[in-house]
């Protein structure tokens, strides 16, 4: 019952952040070319990495609680504000498809040298200031249609946590198989070489580097 430690200090932040940034970069998520190929269905890394991470962490939290080392209800669970949560998800999905990053991956893009990530970050700062300026008009929307505080899928469905995690793993496995099949059909996931060659302001690299597909347009 001694966990979480509730350590919000500098060393904890740096440690978690360094691991987070190192893993995101390794996954290829500093590249907007790779990130947005998810939405063209030719690279399913975003889906695969995110869902694997969600399931691994969810299982770990469940296990730590089952073993009695994690206090039940000890970790923060965000509350649903239906319209704001959905609307924010839609805006972030749209901005990601257009701009090539989300907030965390833009920091990794900047760290791996991407100038477009810096411009994306300037855009985020501007968008945040606009939100703050309009906040008096938006305050009602932000908290409208609130769900129960910190509601989980298990509480909503009346199922035990382990079963919800198992069902999520089944959905993820199905999505993984479908994604791998589409990746093979559409030329394969974006490689590190392709990401580094995709420089704006230069002619596109010759498609010869990609697999031979006689029926491609």
């Amino acid at each position, binding site marked *: 019952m001694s966990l979480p430690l509730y350590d919000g200090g500098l060393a904890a*932040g*740096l440690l978690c*952040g*360094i691991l987070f*940034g*190192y*893993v995101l970069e*390794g*996954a290829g998520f*500093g590249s*907007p*070319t790779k990130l947005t190929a998810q939405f*063209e269905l030719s690279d*399913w*890394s975003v889906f*695969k*990495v*995110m869902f694997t*991470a*969600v399931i691994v*962490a969810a299982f770990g939290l469940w296990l*730590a609680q089952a073993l009695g080392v994690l206090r039940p209800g000890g970790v923060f*669970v*965000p509350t649903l*504000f239906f319209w704001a*949560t*959905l*609307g*924010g*998800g839609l*805006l*972030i*999905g749209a*901005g990601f498809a*257009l*701009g090539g990053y*989300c*907030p*965390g991956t833009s*920091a990794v893009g*900047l760290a791996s*040298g991407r*100038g477009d990530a810096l411009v*994306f970050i300037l*855009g985020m700062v501007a*968008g*945040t200031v606009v939100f*703050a300026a309009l906040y008096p008009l938006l*305050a009602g929307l*932000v908290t409208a249609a609130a*769900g129960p505080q910190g*509601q989980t899928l298990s509480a909503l469905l009346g199922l035990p946590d382990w079963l919800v995690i198992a069902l999520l793993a089944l959905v993820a496995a199905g999505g993984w198989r479908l994604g791998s099949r589409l990746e093979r059909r559409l*030329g394969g996931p974006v490689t590190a*070489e392709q*990401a580094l060659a*995709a420089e704006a*302001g230069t*002619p*596109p690299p010759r*498609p010869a580097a990609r697999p031979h597909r006689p029926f491609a347009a």
Partner: protein
Amino acid sequence: MSDASRSFRPAPFWHPLVAGVALGLTLLLTFLVTGHGLGASGFFTRLAAAVSAWLAPGWTAANAYFGGFVAGGADPLPSWITWEAVGVVIGGLGGSLAARRFRPMVEAGPQGRGGGHGSGYGGASLGGRLAAAFAGGALVGFGGRLSLGCTSGLGLSGGATLAVAGFVFLIGFFLAGFAVSLILRKVRS
């Protein structure tokens, strides 16, 4: 291939299963140490409040959203999420340098698809790419404040706690991402 040319080639990205398990363990560690998950938009909110306070201190202090961050002349930046964001940059820099994937450039990203699938990546105009990056960033900055979190804070960390909010966010995120990507490709072709 000679050893010299091999040493300049980037290391491949990790297998998604390896990256996913590593990210899941990082997220689990974060929960066990801090009691909450990983985030990112929270830092950019504090950064925006700091920039706003620097450019327009009076307006920022009086603003209903930013005011709390700068109350009594406080600096909005010192916070766990800021140390985490600094860590993300250090980790991303170290990882990209070690794997020879660090390269100062403007990457074409979603603007680099000439004629749809199979046509290769890259080839966007510099101005077009930067304009799209700024506009996309603005949508993400605004959206992250509306939903009180982003892909990391709500999607990843909320999802790991099985929060309904995390999955509602992810449904919106993927729906809009697919739709806007489809529209962008239709407009271009």
